[in-house]
Each structure stands twice: as C-alpha cells, then as structure tokens.
C-alpha cells in the first residue's frame, strides 16, 4: 500500500531537553493509525513537526512524497489538522470561520461555499452556519473544526487529542464520523491520543514512549506481545516503564 507519512530518524530537542529520539515510522494511505502515548511522550511535538509549527532538529518527514523541509507548500497542502486547543474564531459565524480557512488555503470563494455546504451538511451543521461559534457547545465546535479541517479535501487528517473536553456521546459520534470518512473518502487518519479506549483492537497503533517509538503494529498484537490484558493495561505498563 502507498505510504502517506514517512518519518525517518527524526529527533528534536528543546534547549538541552531531548523530546524526540530517532523516531522512524510509516503510515500507509487509507489507514486509521493511533499515535498512543502517555502525557510527555512526545506526541504533541511530533504533531507540531508534522504541521510545521516547529522545524525538526534532524531527520526527514515526507508526506505523500513531499519532503516537509524542501517543499513545505506541497506537503502542507495534503494536511487537514484538528488541534487539541480550540482554534475557531469565537466572534465569527460557523460559515465565516470556514470561509477564512478556505481563503488561507488558497481556495476560491465559490469552491469554499460549495465545500462548506457539503461538509456542514454531512455534520448536520448547515442550518447553524450563521451562528457565532461563541454560542455553540463544545461538541458542535469540534464538529466545525472537523468540517474546517476537511474543507480543502486533504489526504491526511491529523487529530491531536481531538476528543479531550468532549462528553462520552460527542466522543463516540466524533470517532464514528472520522472512521466513516476513511471508508467513504479514502482519507488517512493519524489520531493522537492518550486514551486507549478510543482505539479498536484492529487499529494500527504507534506507541510512543519518552520520545521513542516503543512499538508499532496492530493494537491486539501489541497487547498480546506485552502480556497485557487490554489496551488500558498496555498503556499502564507503558507509563510504568516510562516513569
């Protein structure tokens, strides 16, 4: 299967603190891949490098054949991103937020309008397009962020702890929606989380621990290999070995 994300020998430090150590991993196209690790494992730093918010100290990142350092515009154009922190403009409406995002992606207003309608209808938010973000609840705001991330039809969707601050029902709905996109759109998803319950046993998982790739493979295989009873147990073992 073609490769969506190819990371080789990636390291990064903040001052004298090494947060990523020689990370190498691949994500195949059309897959749902969980990036699992305890707090402080280096997930957000890796995520920030993938979105080019920070430049890596060493190593290579290639997204759909585009080197992130050498051709950042082509690489970034393949990405849709949902950050852990809310990033919507509270004083603008749902549609205005999407229009702004489309514009900074270089989309024409006509395309933005058509795509915004498509995505918002799919998330049952089209009727609320003129409402200010300020008046929406947390679950709806996250759905707007998903719609926004998909507006320019990226090939890879990156989600950083996207379900934090959501209640159980919103969390289940969100994960279900993302999984359906893989089937319908052929999207590749890299899902960063520290909550093992969000992943299914058949999912491909990358375990990150203290800035290193601890293991990569199917979650059920990783559980068996670690002698753990379930994903939570696996995470607990990982946290203990990391502390």
């Amino acid at each position, binding site marked *: 299967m073609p490769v969506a994300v190819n990371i080789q020998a990636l390291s990064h430090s*903040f001052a004298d603190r090494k947060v990523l150590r020689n990370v190498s991993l691949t994500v195949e196209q059309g897959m749902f891949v969980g990036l699992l690790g305890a707090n402080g494992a280096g997930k957000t730093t890796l995520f920030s490098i993938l979105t*080019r918010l920070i430049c890596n100290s060493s190593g290579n990142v290639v997204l759909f054949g585009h080197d992130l350092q050498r051709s*950042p515009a082509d690489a970034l154009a393949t990405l849709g991103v949902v*950050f852990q922190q*809310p990033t919507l403009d509270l004083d603008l409406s749902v549609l205005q937020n999407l229009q*702004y995002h489309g514009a*900074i992606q270089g989309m024409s207003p006509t395309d933005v309008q058509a795509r915004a309608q498509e995505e918002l209808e799919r998330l049952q938010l089209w009727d609320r397009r003129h409402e200010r973000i300020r008046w929406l609840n947390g679950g709806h705001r996250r759905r707007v962020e998903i719609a926004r991330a998909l507006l320019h039809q990226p090939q890879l969707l990156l989600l950083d702890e996207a379900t934090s601050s959501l209640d159980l029902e919103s969390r289940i709905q969100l994960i279900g929606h993302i999984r359906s996109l893989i089937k319908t759109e052929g999207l590749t998803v890299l899902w960063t989380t520290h909550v093992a319950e969000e992943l299914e046993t058949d999912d491909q998982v990358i375990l990150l621990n203290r800035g290193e790739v601890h293991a990569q493979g199917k979650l059920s295989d990783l559980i068996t290999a670690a002698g753990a009873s379930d994903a939570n147990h696996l995470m607990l073992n990982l946290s203990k070995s990391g502390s």
Partner: protein
Amino acid sequence: MKNSAYLFCFSGVLKRELQRSLQQRTRFISALVRPLLWLAVFAAGFRGTLEGMVIPLYGSPVDYEVYITPGLVGMIILFNSMQSSLSMVYDREMGSMRVLLTSPLPRSYLLFCKLFAIALTSLLQVYAFLAVAFLFDVAPPPLGYLTALPAILMGAFILGALGLLLASLIEQLENFAGVMNFVVFPLFFLSPALYPLTFMQDGNTWVYWACVINPFTYVVELIRHALYLDLNTPALLVNLAAFTVLTNAAVLGFDPARRMLNNRAPKGR
C-alpha cells in the same frame, strides 16, 4: 500554488479583519471616541496655545483643533496597530494562529496580508474620524482627503509592523499593558502630534531630540502635510526607511511558532 491562491488568501484575511471589526462594534466606536475626546475637550481647553504663532504649512495662525487633527489621526493608527497586535497575542494564546501557520502559502506572505488588513481597518477608522472632525470646523482642502490616503496607509503599515514585532516578543496577554505604557504613550507624546516641536526645542533639549528620533514624528508630519496638499520630503524619506526596515523585520523575523511552542516545551514535552 496558483497565483489566484495568493489573491484569495489576501482577500480572505482582509475580509476576516473587517468582519471582526464589524462584530466588535464597541472597539470601532471606542477607537473614535478617544481622538474625539481629545479634539472636543482637550483642544477646547488649549485653544489659545498656538495664538499668534504662524506655522508655515498653514500660512496663517491656525486653530488648535486644526493643528492636532493629523496628530489624532496618527493616534488612531497607533492605537489600532497596537490593538491588532493584542489580537495576535490573543490568537496565539487561543491557538488560532496555529491554523494560519499550517496554510501552504508562505508565512511571510500571510503576515504581509495581516499587515495590510490592519492598515485597512486603520484607514476606515481614520476617515470616520475625519468626517466627524469636519463638524468641529476641521476642514482641510477636499483634495487633501485623497492626498493623505497614501500617507495614512504608509503610517499604518509602519506602526502595524511595529505592532507585529512587539507581538512576537510578548509571551502573555497580560504583558501587553506594559507595552501600552512603555511604547504607545512615549511614541505619541514624544512627537508633534499635540504641539509643534519648536515648543520642545525652546524648553527641554533631550525631549526635543527624543521627538526627532521618534519615527512616529514623521508619520504625523507626513500626514499633516499631505492633508494640506504639501509633500514633506524629509518625513517621506524617514517614512520610507521605517517602512522598509520595520515591515521586513516584522515579516521575516516574526516566528510565532518558535515562541509559542518553545515557551511551553519545558513543561512537559
């Protein structure tokens, strides 16, 4: 990237800034109230300040309201630029700056768009103020409103760039109050916005020289002369130099990602 993508991005950033200005009506109104208070109250109290004094630009003795109007235009630009910088600090803290930075378009271009958008909102505020100032008998030649436009735009770019530079240096929203006290007020008061520089020359020499090296002095003087159909060449040259240095420094040197992420790093990455 197609060339049209740059155009769509430019218009999108401009539109967002205008939408935000319209949504935050109190901000727009307060931006007008501040200079209008100076015009209606402060200028009334100091009406006799320039009595008997002939300023070459105006030809004959001039009312104080007329004299301080270009200075108040500068005040609007200055405050709007700083407030827009404040919104960038807010954007960074709220994380929406991250969305902007994940755009495939070059960051220097995105920041240029942002600067232009700030300048445009300043322009709207300035012309709204000049319309109200007309009611206070501040009536420059009609063509002056047009000739002042490039000067106002250049001033807005210069001060917007300064604001961007400051925004990149500020780590937290709370620190911005310090900038108002240590940057905005000195820039404004150490300039000919409220009184001619000759006043300072006769009195305190260091204050006079502080005014001479203050770039805001030349922003105000360029606008003052342009509004009365005159070109102040030294002011234009200083404006051009400040424009080149500050916009380049702001656009090339501004790296919010570096600050916003590195600052958080030691806490648990």
